[in-house]
């Protein structure tokens, strides 16, 4: 694998929430609550714990990297050819919490992605159908 074959990129989302960090921490770390907003998970807030997120479109393999209760949580996120890390940061504010999510990862290079799409047409278009169906 050459250095040009992968490229690190990030997705960052931030939101001000009118809730205390402790409450948001529960939603981020308790399996029955995670299931309500993210996916089914056998999550434990324990360093190096391996868990799987399950959705109807497939699974995501994860491992806990950082646990700082009510402040920071990070886990690896490996799915659909994407090797990434998801980091949650909770910062208390006067009105609640500033929640930040950053996902940083390596994606296959464009050429391989196009190739994959070309050979994976049936699946690609199945998914597309679902997305388009969901839009209308």
């Amino acid at each position, binding site marked *: 694998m050459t250095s040009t074959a992968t490229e690190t990129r990030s997705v960052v*989302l931030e*939101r001000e929430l009118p809730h205390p960090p402790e409450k948001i921490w529960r939603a981020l770390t308790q399996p029955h609550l995670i299931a*309500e*907003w993210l996916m089914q998970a056998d999550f434990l807030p324990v360093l190096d714990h391996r868990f799987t997120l399950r959705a109807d479109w497939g699974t995501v393999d994860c491992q806990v990297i950082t646990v700082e209760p009510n402040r920071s949580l990070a886990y690896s996120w490996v799915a659909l050819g994407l090797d990434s890390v998801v980091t949650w940061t909770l910062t208390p504010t006067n009105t609640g919490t500033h929640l930040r999510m950053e996902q940083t990862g390596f*994606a296959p290079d464009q050429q391989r992605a*196009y190739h994959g799409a070309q050979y994976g*047409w049936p699946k690609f*278009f199945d998914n597309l159908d679902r997305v*388009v169906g969901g839009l209308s």
Partner: protein
Amino acid sequence: MPTTQDALFRTLADPTRRALFERLCREGETTVGALTARAGISQPAVSKHLRLLKQAGLVQDRHEGRQTHYSADLGALAPLIDWTSRMKGFWQKRFDHLEDLLNRMDQ
């Protein structure tokens, strides 16, 4: 970027158009005549679909004599393949669900 994606989704949402695009991906450059022979619709209808695919940047055309050759441009799919735009949409929805959940939870 969402506009580009909307156009791609709209264009590929039509099964006939999608079938034409898939054929061009599989078989490489093809003439309108050859596409019509197996499309099960008239040549004007095929041409119309190809025009829309071209507008969305999904195919390119090349004129040679009286024939027009079409080929797929997979680069147009980049916005759909790029994982960051895909994941951004995913997380935005999840943040909405998280906020709903927080509003329902007890302190």
